[in-house]
């Protein structure tokens, strides 16, 4: 397994910490006076998504995490696992519900998303920033109300529920920002 020295620490570096892969999001060198130097690191656990702050003695070595991000197509779920495919190699990957987590509410079959692999198995899945999904259920809005003043909940084909303006009807395809979960606009087909 390859290792990193603290002097190689930088944002985006993937390391193993307490057995889990972590992504470094902030690295600060602390050198008190003439004394021992330290690296103060903020990192995100790529499995649980939790952020932690730890300090390492400068010069220490940590194990590198063999973590890769890949664009993949979501294929289907067999009820237990979720199946993805690398569109270049046609290689298929099986992800657990824990790895897919909340992301599933933005994924419909054949959509392209980002799968994060650790030692070649999926540990988390991120949807595209914007997805286009059909509204399967919403209250009939007030025709002619285009003021955008109010809103109503709408259920999408993947099961996600988003707030949409009153005038948007059932059956419409809308664009949603998955980072905020907010309605962006209607998609003219």
């Amino acid at each position, binding site marked *: 397994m390859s290792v990193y020295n603290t002097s190689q620490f930088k944002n985006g570096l993937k390391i193993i910490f307490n057995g889990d892969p972590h992504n470094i999001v902030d690295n600060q*060198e*602390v*050198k*008190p006076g*003439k*004394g*021992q130097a330290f690296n103060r690191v903020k990192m995100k656990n790529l499995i649980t998504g939790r952020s932690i702050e730890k*300090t390492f003695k400068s010069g*220490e070595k940590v194990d590198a995490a063999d973590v890769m991000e890949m664009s993949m197509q979501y294929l289907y779920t067999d009820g237990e696992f979720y199946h993805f495919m690398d569109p270049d190699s046609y290689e298929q990957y099986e992800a657990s519900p824990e790895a897919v987590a909340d992301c599933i509410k933005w994924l419909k079959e054949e959509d392209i998303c980002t799968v994060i692999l650790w030692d070649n198995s999926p540990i988390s899945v991120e949807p595209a920033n914007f997805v286009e999904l059909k509204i399967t259920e919403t209250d009939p809005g007030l025709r002619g109300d285009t003021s955008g003043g109010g809103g109503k909940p709408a259920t999408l084909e993947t099961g996600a529920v988003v707030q949409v303006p009153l005038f948007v009807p059932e059956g419409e395809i809308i664009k949603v920002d998955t980072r905020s979960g907010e309605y962006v606009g209607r998609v003219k087909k």
Partner: protein
Amino acid sequence: MSKNTDWQISSPLQVIQQRAFLLAEIRSYFADKKVMEVETPVLSSASNTDLQIEVFNTQALVAHNKSSFLRTSPEFFHKRLLASGSGDIFELAKVFRLGESTRLHNPEFTLLEWYRLNFDMKHLMQEVVELIQLLRGQFGLNEMPVSVISYQELFSNHLNFDPFDVSDEHLSRLAQDAGYHGPLLSRTAALDFMFGVQIEPLLNDEVGYLIHDFPIEQAALAKPHQLYADRCLRFEFLWGGVELANGYQELTDADEQLRRFEDDNLNRKLMDKPVLPIDTRLIAAMANGLPECSGVALGIDRLLMCLLNKQSISEVMPFQASNS
């Protein structure tokens, strides 16, 4: 025509003028006080043995040596001058310490180092504050409040424990609770951790801190405390979370100094760091008689950064590791 812009300096011309002004003010301050400016060698056959400082080395100066070293401070030469009867001296010295370029460090930087005969530590601490306040005035800043606080008080005020009365086990647990991860820290390294990671972020940026009476393990070239065997007469000046100056009431005991250098090398061996040649001429000068004095080194690049309210020394250095 080449589009290469690599030749350009990395800080505005105005900052270079401000640096020239700062150096001129410092020279005039010491001229008024009859402190003599000196120049000492950058290359030396002997080295600093300090565990936390990495030294540059290069081809030998004289035939019978293997290599020579770039100075990490002009201190050893200054003490030989003092032992020769120079009286009060100062130098604006280019010094070299290996390490990454960071917000507060460049491998080559400028130190103002000065020595005052018959000054005790408190007296020199006052002079450091006097100089800083004067320079602040010249740069259009108000006088800054200064907190004079012992190393012990700093820990008990901010972290509620006494650094001189805490067991190694307890200290190690405190460091882990505060987010340290890795092999067991030595007592000194654990205190460095608490100081740098826990205390420094809590300090008020608008206040200057004069911290004194450090643990004896961190004495380097400082005299032991007269009353407490576990402390030494060393101080630091911090401004805006930045360590600007480090000073000692100087150790004059040659045997004790040699023992400390030898301890450094012993610890270097244990830590797989290179063992370095001790400056025996410094030891001989001390044995011959180093006058009672106090001395301090102040980082000029950091000082200029603070005076100009910049965030990184790279903003006040026209040439740095990346473009020199």
